[in-house]
C-alpha cells in the first residue's frame, strides 16, 4: 500500500471524537485565555480632543473632583414658607421632592393666561444633546401652547450645529459667520447671548446671511414676527437686506443699547436676511413669537454640563429679561457629567448651586426648574444595566435644587427608574437610541409628556391652594391681584 492511499483511508475515517475533543479543548483554553487576557477588546473611553465637552466642566473636575460633604439632606423633610398670598404647598420628604412652591410665580402667570387670557409667559429651556434638534422641547412647547395659547418656536440661534436635525424650524446660514459658544470659549469677543452664543459677520466681501423656514409642528407653522437680537457696537453703517417678491428692502440696524431688537417681517412662511456691513456687531439670534400666550425657547448645546451658564453677563441677561420676560428657567443637564470617573458629585452640586443663584440674578423673578439626568445604561458583565453614576448624580441634582430653591423633576424615576433605559432601547416600540443615552422622536415625545404632566400636577394643585387662599383672604378684602408675587410685569413689547 502506498502512502497516498493510506492517507486517503485515514481521511475517510470517522473523525467525530477528534471534533468533540477540539470543542472541549477550545472551551478549556478559552477559560484559560479569559483569566489572563484583557476583559474588553475595545476600551470605552475615547480621549479625542475633537469631541465636544465643555471646558468649564473639565476644569471643575480637575480642581475639585474629590470634594466631599456631609449629607445633611436625605431623610429630611423640606418645609416651604408660605407666599404673600398665603399659598403653601405641603411639606415634602427629600425622597419625593418636587419643590412646586418655588414655581409659584410661573404658575400664577399660567393662571392669568388660562382664566383672564391676560399677559404672556415665557420659558427658557437650557439643555444638552438630549434636547438637541428641539427634541423634547418642541413637544413641551406644543403641550403648553395647546392649553395656554401662543404661537412660534421662540428664540433661535444664528448658526447651529444641530440646524440639520431640527424639524420645528428649517434653518440655513452662510458659512462666513464666526460663532463663539460658552462651551468652548472662555473669553469671548463680546458677552454671550441668552442662548450661550454670540455670532459675528466676519466677512465684508461676501454677504452673510441666515434663512429660516417654518416647520410643520402645531403652533409653529408660521414664522411669527421674526425679530433679530443684537448687541451694541460703534458700527452704525450696518443694515439688513431682504428680498420679498421683486422688492429689495433695506433696514438699518441700530446697535445703540446693550441689547437691541429689530423686527424684520410680520408673519411669514420663510425669511432670508442678508447682513450688510455688519462686522463687529454681536448678533444673538432671531425670535419668533406672536406676542400672546406662552413661548418656549430651546437653548440646547451638545456637550453642556450646565456649568457654562455661570459665564452669563448679568447686565446683558437683565436686558434679555427686559425684552423677553422669562418666567421659568428649565435646566436639563447631567448626561455629560455621568462618565467623569467617580461617583462623588459634590463638586458638581456646589458649582450648579452657584449657577442657579447666578441665573436668579440674571433673570430676576423667574422660577427655576431642575430636570435630572435620564437613565443611561452601561455594560456590566455582558449585560446592559443602569449606569452606577445615574443615581448619585440625580441625588446631587436634587440637592442643589433644594438648596437653590428650585423645582425638581426626577426624570430617571419618571421614565421607570432602574433599568428603564434598557427597556426604552430594546422594547418595541423603540423609544431610545442604541447609545443607551439619547431618546428618539417617539421617546422624546413621551419624556416631554412626563415632564409636562409633573408641571401640570403642580399647577392644578396651585389652583386649588390659590382658591382656598383667596376665599380666606376675601372677607378682609386686602388681597388684590397686584399683590401677587409676580415681580416681572414690565414685559417689553
Amino acid at each position, binding site marked *: 500500500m502506498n502512502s497516498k492511499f493510506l492517507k486517503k483511508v485515514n481521511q475517510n475515517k470517522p*473523525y467525530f471524537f477528534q471534533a468533540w475533543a477540539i470543542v472541549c479543548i477550545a472551551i478549556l483554553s478559552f477559560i484559560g485565555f*479569559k483569566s489572563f487576557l484583557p*476583559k474588553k477588546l475595545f476600551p470605552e473611553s475615547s480621549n479625542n480632543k475633537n*469631541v465636544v465637552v465643555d471646558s468649564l466642566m473639565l476644569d471643575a473636575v480637575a480642581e475639585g473632583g474629590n470634594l466631599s460633604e456631609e449629607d445633611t439632606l436625605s431623610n429630611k423633610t423640606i418645609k416651604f414658607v408660605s407666599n404673600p398670598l398665603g399659598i403653601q404647598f405641603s411639606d415634602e420628604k427629600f425622597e419625593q421632592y418636587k419643590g412646586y412652591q418655588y414655581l409659584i410665580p410661573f404658575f400664577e402667570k399660567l393662571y392669568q393666561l388660562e382664566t383672564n387670557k391676560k399677559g404672556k409667559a415665557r420659558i427658557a429651556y437650557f439643555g444638552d*444633546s438630549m434636547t438637541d434638534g428641539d427634541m423634547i422641547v418642541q413637544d413641551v412647547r406644543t403641550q403648553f401652547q395647546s392649553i395656554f395659547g401662543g404661537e412660534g418656536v421662540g428664540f433661535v440661534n444664528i448658526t447651529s450645529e444641530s440646524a440639520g436635525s431640527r424639524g420645528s424650524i428649517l434653518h440655513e446660514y452662510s458659512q462666513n459667520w464666526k460663532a463663539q459658544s460658552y462651551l468652548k470659549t472662555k473669553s469671548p469677543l463680546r458677552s454671550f447671548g441668552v442662548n450661550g452664543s454670540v455670532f459675528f459677520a466676519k466677512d465684508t466681501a461676501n454677504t452673510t446671511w441666515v434663512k429660516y423656514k417654518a416647520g410643520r409642528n402645531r403652533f409653529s407653522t408660521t414664522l411669527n414676527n421674526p425679530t433679530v437680537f443684537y448687541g451694541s457696537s460703534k458700527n452704525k453703517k450696518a443694515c439688513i437686506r431682504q428680498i420679498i417678491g421683486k422688492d429689495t428692502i433695506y433696514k438699518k440696524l441700530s446697535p445703540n443699547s446693550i441689547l437691541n431688537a429689530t423686527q424684520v417681517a410680520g408673519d411669514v412662511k420663510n425669511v432670508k436676511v442678508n447682513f450688510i456691513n455688519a462686522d463687529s456687531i454681536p448678533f444673538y439670534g432671531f425670535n419668533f413669537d406672536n406676542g400672546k400666550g406662552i413661548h418656549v425657547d430651546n437653548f440646547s448645546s451638545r456637550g453642556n454640563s450646565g456649568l457654562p451658564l455661570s459665564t452669563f453677563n448679568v447686565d446683558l441677561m437683565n436686558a434679555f429679561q427686559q425684552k423677553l420676560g422669562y418666567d421659568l428657567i428649565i435646566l436639563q443637564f447631567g448626561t455629560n457629567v455621568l462618565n467623569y470617573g467617580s461617583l462623588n458629585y459634590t463638586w458638581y452640586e456646589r458649582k450648579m448651586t452657584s449657577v442657579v443663584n447666578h441665573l436668579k440674578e440674571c433673570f430676576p423673578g423667574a422660577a427655576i426648574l431642575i430636570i435630572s439626568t435620564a437613565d443611561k445604561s452601561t455594560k456590566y458583565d455582558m449585560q446592559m444595566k443602569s449606569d452606577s453614576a445615574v443615581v448619585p448624580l440625580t441625588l446631587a441634582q436634587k440637592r442643589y435644587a433644594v438648596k437653590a430653591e428650585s423645582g425638581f423633576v426626577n426624570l430617571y424615576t419618571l421614565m421607570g427608574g432602574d433599568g428603564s433605559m434598557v427597556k426604552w432601547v430594546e422594547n418595541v416600540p423603540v423609544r431610545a437610541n442604541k447609545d443607551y443615552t439619547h431618546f428618539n422622536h417617539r421617546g422624546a415625545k413621551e419624556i416631554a409628556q412626563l415632564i409636562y404632566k409633573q408641571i401640570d400636577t403642580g399647577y392644578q394643585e396651585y389652583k386649588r391652594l390659590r382658591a382656598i387662599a383667596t376665599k380666606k383672604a376675601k372677607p378682609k378684602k386686602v388681597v388684590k391681584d397686584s399683590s401677587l408675587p409676580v415681580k416681572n410685569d414690565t414685559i417689553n413689547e
Partner: protein
Amino acid sequence: MLQDWFSKNIGVITPEIIKSWFVYDKDAPLLFNTGLFLGLFLVFYFWYILLRKANTLRMVYVILFSLFFYYKSSGIYFLLLLGSAVVDYNLGNLVHRTSSIINKRLCLTFSIILNLGFLGYFKYSNFIVDITNNLTGGKMAFFDVILPVGISFYTFQSISYIIEIYRKEIEPTKRFVDYLFFVSFFPQLVAGPIVRAKDFLPQIYQKLNVTQDDINRAFLLIIGGLIKKTIISDYISINFVDRVFDLPNAYTPFENLMASYGYTIQIYCDFSGYSDMAIGVALLLGFKLPTNFLTPYKSASITEFWRRWHISLSTWLKDFLYISVGGNRHGTFAGFLFPGLFFVGLIIWGISFSATSNIPLIIAVSSAILFALTFLLSKDRERTMYTNVNLMTTMLLGGLWHGASLRFIIWGALHGLALAVHKIFLEHYPPVKRKITFFTPFLKTFSIVVTFHFVAFCWIFFRAKDFPTALQVIENIGKVTFDFNQWLIIAQGYKNVFILMFLGYFWHYIPQKVIVAIQNVFISMPLITKAIVLGLIFWLVFATASAGPQPFIYFQF
C-alpha cells in the same frame, strides 16, 4: 480552592441560572454565538457521537434537541412547528399517492395556502391592517401576534418538500420522524440556509460519517462566522451604524456615507456569518448544507450579485416562485398582478405628492417607463416582457419575504428593475462580443464598484426604519464634500469601528488564493493547536461582546 477558581473563571451557578438555561426567554434566544449554546452543544454532541450508529434513536434525539432549541427562541410556538410538520407530512403523502392531476393540484394548493397562511398571519397581518388603515383612514386594531423565529425559513422548506414531491423530484420520506428531522434540524432552523428536501433527505438515509476534511471545513466556517457575526457586524452596528440610522440628521454627511458603507458590510457579515456557523455546526453533525454566500460584493453585475447573495433563497425563489408564475416562457395572472399593483401604487403615490412636489411623480413615471423599456427595446418583446414581469414579481415578493414593510418592497423593486435593466444591456452588448483588451480589468473593477454602490444604495431602504429616514440618509450623503481634515477627525473618533469595517471589506476583497493559503495553515495544524486557535476566537468574541457601547460622540470641527 477549586471552588474559588470555578467562581472566578466561570461564575457562580445558582438554581435560577440553571433554570434560565432551559426556560424560554424572548430576550435571550439560543444563538450559535452564545456561551450557553457552546455549553449545551458540548454535551449534546458527546451523546450524538455515542448514538451515531443507532439511526432512529439518534434522529429522535436530534429532533428533541431541535425542538428545545426552537422553544428557547420562540417559546410555545415550537408546537406550531410540530403541528405544521404533521400536516405537511400527510399532505406530502397525499400529493404523492393521488393519481389524478386535479386532486394532486388541489392538495398542493391547499398545502401552499395553509403554509403561506400561517406565515401571512404571523408576519403580514399587522402590515395589511396598517395599509388598510392608511388607505381608508380607519382605525382597525392590530393583531396581538409575535413573529415566531425562523417561520419564514421553515415555511419555505416545507413548501419545497411538497412542490418537489408534486414535481416528482423526490419521494416522500419513509417515516414521519425523517420528515420532522428535516424540517426541525436546528442548525438551519432559525436563519437558514433554506435547505431543499432533495438535497437533504438523501443524507438522512446515508451512513453517518464525518471526515477530517469535513471537520476542518466546519471549524473554519465556525471561526469565520464568529468573527464576521460577533466581532465585525455586532460591534459596528451598535457603535455606529444604528446610531446614524436612528437620527441621520444629527450626523455629518460623511458619517451618513460611512454608516451606509458600514451597513453594507454589517448585513453581509451578520447574515453570512450566521449562515456559515449553521453550515459548520451541521457539518460537525455529518450533514452538508448548501453554501449560502459567495463574497457577493465581488460581483461585477447585479445578476451575478444574486447568484452570490443568499443563494439558498434566490434559488428557492427561482425554482418555486419565478418558474411557477411562468418563468421566461409565459405570463400568468399572478405574474402580472404584483408588478401591476406596484407600479399603479407608485404612480398614485406620486400623484398624491404632486401638490407639494413633482419629484415623486417623476420618479414613479420614469421607473415605470424604464421598466417598460427593458422589454420594449428587446428583439423578442413578448418573451422578454414575460421574463421581466415574472422577475419583478419574484423580487417584489422576495423583498416582502424579508419583512413586512413597504421599504422591503421598494428594495425588492429596485433590485428587480436593475436585473431587468442588466438583461436588456446584456442583450445589446453580449459578453462574447467584448474582446479582452488592456482595459478589461479596469472595466471589470468599474463594474464591481458600480454594482457594489447600487447594492449599498438599496440597503439604505432595507435598513432605515421608515421611508423619510431613508430619504434623509440619501439626502445627507448627497451633501458629502471632500474635507480630509473632517474625515480624519471622524475616523479617529470611531477608530475601532472603522478598523473593523476595513477588516470586513479587506477580508471580502482579498483574492481567494490568499484565503485558501490561510485556511491551509489552519488545516495543517495539529489537533491541539486548532483547538487553542478556536479558544482564542472564543475569547475574541467574549472580549468584543463585553465591551459596552462606545459613548456618544459629537464632533467639533
